[in-house]
Structures are given as C-alpha cells and as structure tokens.
C-alpha cells in the first residue's frame, strides 16, 4: 500500500506531466506561428495551429492551476518555502501567462489579427517555460537560503549557474520538439502536405538538440546535487528506455511514416524521463529543507483530496474524451471541412 504522501505526489506529478505535454504543444505552436509569419510561410501552417489551439487553450492552463493548488493542499509547507522564495520569478510567470492567455483570446475571438499579438504569443511561448522551470532548478538546492527564519532566493547564484541555464535551454528545446512532433501528426491527419513538410522539418531540427541538452543537464546536475545525480545513475535503465523511444520516434518521423505512433512514443519518452527525474528526486520537494514527509497534510485532508481527485476524474475523463473526439479525432474537423 502506497502512503498518502506518495499518492499525493504521484497525482501532482502526473498533472505536471500533463501540463508539460499540452503546454509544450501550445507554447511551441505559438513560436512556430510567429516564426512562420516572420519568414512569410505563415499561410502554410497557420490554419493547422488555429484549428488545434482554439478549443483547448483554457484547458492547458487548468493543468498548471491544478498542480499549484493541489501541492498546497497535499504539501502545505511548499507554500511557505516556495511561496516566499519565488515572489519575483513567480510574478513574472503570472504576467507572461496573463499576457499570453488574454492576447490569444483577443486575437482569436476579437476580430482582427495583428503582428503585435502574434509576436507576444510567440515570445511568451518561449519565456514561460523558461521562467517556470526555475522551480525545478531551485528544488535541487543551493539557490535558497533559510536563515533567521526567512527564506530567500539567491538571485546571483541562480543567474550565474550553468545548471540553471542548461535547464532553461532544455525546457525551450523540448517545447519546440514536442510541439513540432504533435503538429506534424496533426498536419498529416489534416492531409495538408505543405504544412506537413514544414512541420516535419521543424521536428527533425529540434530532435537532436533536445537529447543533447538532456545529457548536458545530467552532467551539470552532478556539480549541483551529487545525491540526486547518483540516484539517477541507479535507475539509468529508465532513461535508457526513454532514449530508445526517442530514437524510434525520430526514425519514424525521418522515414515519414506513422506520425501518430511517433508522437505517442515521444509522449512516453518524456513520461519515462519525467518520472525518472521525479523518482530520483524523491523524497525531496526542496533539497535539503523539505521532503514529502515534512508538514504533509493531515490524514483526513489527504483522504478527502484523494476522493475529490477520483471523483473529479470520473467527471473529467469523459469530458476530455468528448472534446478530443470532436476536435482531435474528427477527421472532417481536422481537415477544416467542418467549422
């Protein structure tokens, strides 16, 4: 029987993984949309991106909200540590998310297209993942001081740390890779050959950098948190599986076939790597101050949250399937024959 602490962190980590995938698709799409506009290839992929993003953008956001509200419910002490330390990066992330979400809606529903909107949409698509990954970076320890009862973020250490920058680059590269592979799949379903060609090229461009950055982050982690690094080496096979999935998926895309399978493999690639990272981080929420066993919520609250979570899933899964059926798997809709 898993302890409540482990159930709690697994639930939250799964939501964060969900956010990683759906948000990456969204963020990357924003960037590609802007980039293709700037390079005058706009007409090729614009429709594909619009058709996918329009119905789902809010849902993406909710995954994130789930995570940060859920973590306060299960692990209230995280509010104290991370809340105090992350005032500035957290606020910047909020501002970027706010600009992105609202200007996307303004551009999509509010009549006219504008260069400024699309620039904002593209730029925030790269800046948001960069700012959000700060949380994972500081969880490794060494970037927070906890003296005289006050928690402070050490900005200089954060900004001069090679590890922190490598994580930022990994995040951006991964966003572009995940997004490009999804959009390749979507374009192939829409039977839009021009878009497919371009997006497939993007996907292949970002495949190798994503894996190289993964290795670099691992190397730099050694200097940052040797304990975590050792734990990763202990479960090296998880990352080996992840790599194999990556290789097969990239091969399929390169060969130009089975884009759907390729995207699923890449989702599983990130799933294994993300959970491998999470398990090796265990039991720390914030190294070395906070583990999942410190200040865990009370048992009645944990049970209530888990019941609410299961009840919620019964509501959400059918709804999500419905929206996917209507917009993602409805060939007529994807091909633009239906409004």
């Amino acid at each position, binding site marked *: 029987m898993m302890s409540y602490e482990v159930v709690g962190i697994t639930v939250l980590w799964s939501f964060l993984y969900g956010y990683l995938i759906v948000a990456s698709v969204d963020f990357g799409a924003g960037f590609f949309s802007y980039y293709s506009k700037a390079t005058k290839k706009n007409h090729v992929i614009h429709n594909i991106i619009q058709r996918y993003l*329009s*119905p*789902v953008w*809010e*849902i993406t*956001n*909710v995954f994130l909200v*789930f995570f*940060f*509200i*859920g973590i*306060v*419910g*299960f692990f*209230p*002490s995280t*509010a*104290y*540590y991370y*809340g*105090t330390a*992350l*005032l*500035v990066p*957290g*606020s910047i*992330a*909020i*501002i970027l*998310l*706010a*600009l992105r*979400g*609202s200007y*996307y*809606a*303004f551009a999509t*529903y*509010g*009549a*006219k297209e504008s260069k400024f909107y699309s620039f904002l949409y593209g730029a925030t698509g790269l800046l948001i993942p960069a700012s959000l990954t700060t949380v994972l970076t500081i969880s490794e320890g060494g970037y927070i001081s906890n003296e005289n009862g006050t928690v*402070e973020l050490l900005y200089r250490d954060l900004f001069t740390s090679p590890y922190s920058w490598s994580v930022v680059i990994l995040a951006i590269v991964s966003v572009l890779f995940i997004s490009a592979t999804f959009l390749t799949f979507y374009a192939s379903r829409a039977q839009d050959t021009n878009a497919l060609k371009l997006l497939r090229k993007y996907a292949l461009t970002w495949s190798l950098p994503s894996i190289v950055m993964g290795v670099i982050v691992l190397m730099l982690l050694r200097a940052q948190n040797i304990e975590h690094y050792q734990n990763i080496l202990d479960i090296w096979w998880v990352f080996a599986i992840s790599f194999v999935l990556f290789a097969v998926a990239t091969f399929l895309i390169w060969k130009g076939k089975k884009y759907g399978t390729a995207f699923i493999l890449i989702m599983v690639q990130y799933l294994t790597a993300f959970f491998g990272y999470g398990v090796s981080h265990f039991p720390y929420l914030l190294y070395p101050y906070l583990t999942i066993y410190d*200040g865990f*919520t*009370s048992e*009645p*609250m944990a049970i*209530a*949250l888990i019941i*609410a*979570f299961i009840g919620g899933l019964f*509501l*959400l899964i059918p*709804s999500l399937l*419905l*929206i996917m059926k*209507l*917009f993602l798997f409805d060939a007529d809709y994807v091909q633009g024959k*239906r*409004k």
Partner: protein
Amino acid sequence: MFIDYDPVIYSRLLTSLTLGFHVIFATIGVGVPLMIAIAEWMGIKRNDPHYTLMARRWARGFVITVAVGVVTGTAIGLQLSLLWPNFMQAAGHTIGLPMFMEVFAFFFEAIFLGIYLYTWDRFKTKMRHFLLVIPIVIGATASAFFITTVNSFMNAPQGFNIVDGILTDVSPLAAMFNAATPTKISHVIITCYLTAAFILGAIAAFHILKGNKHVYHKKALHLTMVSGIIFAIGTALIGDLSGKYLHEYQPEKLASAEWHLETESGAPLILGGFINDENEISYALEIPYALSILAGGTPDTEVIGLNEFPEEDLPPLWIHYMFDSMVFIGMFLAAVSALFVAMNWKKNWNAFNRPLLWAVVAGGPLSMLAIESGWFFAEVGRQPWIINGVMRTAEGATTSQHVDLMLYLFIILYAVLGITVVVVLRRMFKSNPIEHELEERGFAHKKEDEKEVARR
C-alpha cells in the same frame, strides 16, 4: 507619498488589486452563462432566431471576458502562495479541499465552453447544442460555490483544533460547511446572476437609447429585466439573512459597518453620514429599529456595539460606506427592474421611456460597483484577521523584498488588459451589428415582429 517598505501593506494592496480586477471577470463568468442558457432556451421554445442570436452574441463576448477571468484567476491562485505563504500553509491544512475542487469545477466548465463555442452548427438538433451550456452553467456556479466556501472559512473558521500552535483534528467538510457558508454562497451566486442580467440589460438599453429600433434589443432588455427582478428579490432576501449571520457570528463586523457604537436593543440603522475621531456621527440618516430588525428580525433585538471590542480587533470604520453603497445599489436595481417589468406588463404604458432606459444603463456599471463594494466590505471588514480569530493578516504575509515592485508591475498589467478588453469587445460588436448578422444567417428584419412585441 512615501511609505516605508512593509511587505504586509504591499501584499494587501497587491491582493486587493488582483482580486478587485479579477472579481469583475469572475462575476461575469458566473452570471453570464445562465443568461446565455436562458436566451438559447427561449430561442428553441419560441422558435425565435433573435433569442438564439442573443445567446450566440453573448457567448462571443463572454469568451473574451472568460479569458481575462482565467488569467487573473491563475494570477490570484499563485499570488495567494507568493504573498501569503504562511496563510496558505495554514489554509492548505484546513481548507485545501474546496480550493482543489474549484479547479475541477473550472476544468469541467472550460472543456464544455470550448465545445460549446465551436459546435453551434454541428448537431442535428438545436436542443443538443443547448445541452452543452448546462455543464457550463453548473461548472461556473460550482466554481463560485467552492471558492466562496474558502472565503466563508476565513470569516468563520472551524473544522480544526490548535494545540501548541499545531493544527490538529482537521475535518475538511466541517471547515468547508461553516457558519458563514450558506449565506455567503447564496449571496455571491445570486448577485453574480443579478449583475450579469443588468450588464446585458444595460447594453440593450443603450442601443435603444442610441436610436436602434430593432426588436432584438427590446427582447434582450425584456429578458434581462425579468431575470433581473427575480434575482434582485432573491438578493434582498439573502441579504437579510446575511445580516442575521453577522449578528450571530461576526458582531464586530456588523457594528463597524453600521457605526453601531453602544450595545442596545431597538437599534437604529445609520445610513451615510460622517464619523469623527471621537466617534461622533453627523449628517447621517437614522431609521429607527431597522438595525435590530436586520440583525434579529424583531425591533427589540439587542445588537452588540463597538464598545464591546478592543480597538485593535476592529476593522476600519470606512467599510460603512462600502456596506451602504452595496445596499443602495441593490435596492436601485430591484426598483428599476420591477418598474420596467410592471410598465411592460401594463399594455398602455411605455416601458421603453428614456428615463427608465437611462436608469437601466446606469444599473450595469452600478451593479459591478456593488460587487466591488461588497467584496471590499467582506475583506476589509474581517481585518485585522486573515483567518478570523486565528491568524492576523500581518502573520500571514510574506517577508520577501520587492513586493512593491511587483505591485507596480501588476498595475501596468491590469491597466493594459483592462483597456484592451474594452477595445476588443467594442470592435467585435461594432464591426458586426445584429442587423448584419441576422441577414447573414438568413433572417431578415421583419416588421411584424416589432408590432407583436409592442402589443405584448
């Protein structure tokens, strides 16, 4: 003005700013789906394309406000942890459940809103599309329900014990269903509906005043005012119960709002006026016995006065004005909608006369002002506590530097969002007036329609 840096003050200012801005969109977000549902339902029942178009247009404007509601909701969700880490630590232990469930409710709503917006012409029957709005209404109202239980908890905390500074014996359901929950939830939800009705009504009235003769606007005004009077009566009844709740559980808040200085029975209600440092009231209107009736239902109810509380446990007395404006506006909205419905019902009276139309137009922004006043009253009236009687606001706040800088950044952000949302909404509806849209959808303007409504 120069204030020494104090993270508590800046955290309070930034939270007020975010909540004050968010609540505009949250209120619309809770109230408007119900109005859309009513309009779409009428469109099907009466087989009237005007109502269907109404639902479509409201939904189109709605989604813009939802976007701002979502992003500012995300902002406040994160800001609570960033600005009030100690409070959120305590809240996570005690009242984390409804916060978590609120996200589920919103998730549910977001999914169906995405489907609803893009499937107007996709189903065989109109009824099937109507069914999609129901989860949106439920999700929106459930969001309000869950998040208001958190606010209720802050006013009437229960469902835990504190032993040597440690929270124990937590009961999430007891915390959620506290003494403040019934009145607070019903008050918040019904006033969202009322405000939504008046904002949409104000738009219709404004078009009529501008000389637009299309029957669409008359139908919209009639629909919103009939809804408005129902919600206004509900608001008044629930408001009365809220007064009784305060009397029972937060007498210091009631006494501060009403400038009720000494404990007494047969207490008068003080409206408006000024109060000086010696607590002398001038220029106020006094209604004999009214406070006793509000508090306990009878004129001889004894109402506890400010004299019974140490000054450091009392909120600032300016919340009196917040309370008064909320109540005044509520009564104004009830009167306007009642008058409209009554005049429309009498065949030989003209409900569409200019003074009444202007009153409806004023009702739109005023209803939002009442929402703001109500929330400022609720929040400032709970001071100096963040969790009433358990944690003082200053104890809950962050100790971080730079909260002031964040405040300035967010002022700019909300100004930019606020301006753009207005510009976008105006452009959206100006470039596509109803006449044009009806024609586009194959329903030309029929003269008979107008006569028929005039007769009704």
